[in-house]
């Protein structure tokens, strides 16, 4: 079951080889998220409008391996942007993927860029 986690590896900006055009910025809720399908991957993408930033991470919550993080609520933990899983409220940093309220494995994060009102997610493959 955990094999699913191997699909998701944090991708740094400098390692991006493919910028995948996911959808229009208007397809994402303000200060909320939605899920993007890329090949066999599910990526949660968040429009953190209060910070003026976009974030992307794996959609699967490493706690119970369910594809739910895009439906989670975003906010901040002492200033650090985070998402709370809708199932058990495990929270993860959107900046580095760390689990903020426990010791679950970190989630993989991906770079996002916005060009001409389109949302692009950066992948290494």
């Amino acid at each position, binding site marked *: 079951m955990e094999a699913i986690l191997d699909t998701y590896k944090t991708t740094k900006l400098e390692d991006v080889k493919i910028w995948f055009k996911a959808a229009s910025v208007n397809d994402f809720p303000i200060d909320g998220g939605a899920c993007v399908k890329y090949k066999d991957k599910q990526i949660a993408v968040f429009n953190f409008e209060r910070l003026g930033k976009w974030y992307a991470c794996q959609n699967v919550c490493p706690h119970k391996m369910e594809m739910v993080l895009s439906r989670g609520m975003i906010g901040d*933990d002492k200033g650090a942007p985070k998402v709370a899983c809708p199932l058990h409220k495990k929270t993860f940093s959107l900046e580095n993927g760390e689990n903020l309220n426990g010791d679950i494995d970190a989630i993989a994060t991906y770079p996002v860029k916005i060009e001409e009102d389109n949302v692009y997610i950066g992948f290494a493959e």
Partner: protein
Amino acid sequence: MYKYVIMKHIIVVGNGMVGYKFCEKFIAQSNNEDFKITVFGEEPRPAYDRVHLSEFFENQNAKALEMAPAEWYVDNGITLITGERVADINRTDKKITTAKDREFSYDYLVMATGSSPFVPPIKGVEKEGVFVYRTIEDLEGMLAYAAKLNKEKPNARAAVLGGGLLGLEAGKAVLDMGLEPHIVEFAPKLMPRQLDSRSSQVLKLKLESIGLNIHLSKATNQILGDKFITGMEFGEDDVLDVDMLIISAGIRPRDELAKACGLEVGVRGGIVVDNTMKTSDDSIYAIGEIALYNQMIYGLVAPGYDMAEVAVKQITGNIDDTMVDTIDMSTKLKLIGVDVASFGEPFMPASKGHSIIFENKTEYLYKRINVSLDGKSLLGGILVGDASDYNMLHQMYLNGMAIPENAAQLILPASDGASAFGDVTDLPDEAQVCSCESVTKGQICSAIENGEATDVAGVVACTKAGTGCGGCKPMVADLTNATLKSLGITVKEGVCEHFDLSRQDLYKIIQVKGYTTFNEVLDNHGNGGHGCELCKPLVASLMASINADTANKEYTIQDSNDRFLANIQRNGTYSVVPRVPGGEITPEKLIALGEIAKKYDLYTKITGGVRIDLFGATLNQLPLIWKELISHGFESGHAYGKSLRTVKTCVGSTWCRYGMDESVSFGIELENRYRGIRAPHKIKGGVSGCIRECAEARGKDFGLIAVEGGWNLYLGGNGGANPRHAELFAEQIDNETVIKYLDRYLMFYMRTAKPLQRTAAWQERLEGGLDYLKEVIIEDTLGIAEDLEKEMQTLVNKFECEWTQAINNPEMMKRFSHFVNSEDEDDNLVFVPMRDQKMPEPWN
């Protein structure tokens, strides 16, 4: 006879912080009816907070820096024209012409054009990669350039020309952009205007320890590079290779307009004003960094705000309000995380007094106070590394307060934990706590004593203390807490790190202010963060309890279940529960439920609340299922909400041979009355037709049992982890009285309970217990019964089925799709068979 007044027209030239403050003060002025204001701003956006400009590098949120949104000007009758520079002033005809060649007449002209960065005439400053640090557009330019550098060149370097206050701010920006930071200063020390040599040295060591490279006594001869900057040349063989340069070498007043129309200006720039802020033309005023007052330009925001106030007073005829003679230039800042402060006379000559200096370079600390020759008063000082005592020292200086015999105590590290300052409450009432907004200690304390404010956020809202540079916030908090304590008020508990307010306080605030979005509540009453999974659903619930908002309105602040109007289950699929009021259902509806469950292959079960639950629906299926349910006459059952679930009933006197009353009819009536109403937690009801109590009504939040002569009403029961029987509240009352008491009870609970507190826990912790509850609800001792009933009736009248609302609105429907870029379902779902139905694959 008609009496009419010709409105006088004030034109404000410049929409910076001080220009904005003029408008704000004008609106607050009592006799302002006969004036109208037009403001011209050269920049594309309304005035923003330049003091906190470096925050833009952290969040790139220009909106957050705005002094007030564009709507604020509209709401207050001010015409704001941005992106249009005033190009000419015709003083004879009292007219201005803009860069777009439009003419406007004025009665009064207020010059608030501020300043522009001074760019020294160095060869090569025009090269790409050289920036100034003043506007959001400047910052956007830097960010774009830095992003390009970061991509093309690892370890790119950026220098800041100027080691003053703004230069160090810009140094922070360079750090935030991920470039290697260098500070280049012409003088032999940093912050030459505020710091002495020793404190400047301590600051330099501290900044170097966090990675800044500091180059002092460097005069830049030229900027190197062809098209782009590649370096700075200081002398022969003295070159610093850099890829970007931010010039922050001081400011120059924007007085070209004033010069062109012949207003008197100073030798080194700035429009000459007297202590009424009037220029050499009686109809023209000048405020802020453009005004030359006492032969000085004041680059701080506090004197600018004072000038705005004086100009407002003068124009509205309060001619006795003038500018003070000497302006306090004390200042406290956090530069790149390092405290720096100076107050009074930081560099006092030895003839006027003695200096006491504490220096500890290992911890990058420097403190200096200047004490009068007689040792009785404080004349000024400098703090680097730790400015936590600044507010008290500054107050002592401003108010000429007595200092301890051994003045060194004021800056020496406390050995026994005792403070040498005494208490904030010892300050005189006239002590100015917030110098940006000129708020005194007396004003802060009386705001609390008069009941205008009950906490720090309230004090800030009604006095404006702390809304400028924010340096006085700790002192405002101390004063607020001390005053509350002196009044015997305990400091309230906040709901999470984003709000210091309790649920009850937030309830009142949202009700009184009429807020309708989470951001309004957070921005006006929060602690400056962005919310979390605790406060967002709470505020959503409060707005629903107050405004009858459905969960469709702002679905991203709703809790997991409310967000998709369904109950999320183990594998991320949902369960669907339509309302079956009182548990009464026709065979046709039962069949419809079965057909729909079969069609979508849903696991089906009767719930604990005697309803039918359909499990295993995907996000994409939810609207399809609901369309069918609604077409068969069902509506949302709110099983996903902190709201009324069911009113469980026994069959009652219509069929049962023991029944005393129609429990089903009354149960249905109650369920339909309170359906959809959001509360601190879920609410369940029960109605039994006789004392055999088949509906288990005493295990519910509210329960009714039919007896001879009416209903017995029980309140505050609970099943769950801590079972509790509901308490008998009233006996033998009729249907109408039941509804009256229930309206009042539920509304009182909704107003005062803690977040996620069931009625049982709330009632148990209610001071005075059941007797108090009876006094409030039956005898109306608080005089709120009528309000409670009215509020409840409003909610009842506004009820709307959320699912019907959602499926008829394409915008609300957008969220019911697993992928934003594909119609596919979640391919991760695995179901396994179980007793002729399906279930999710178990978790490991």
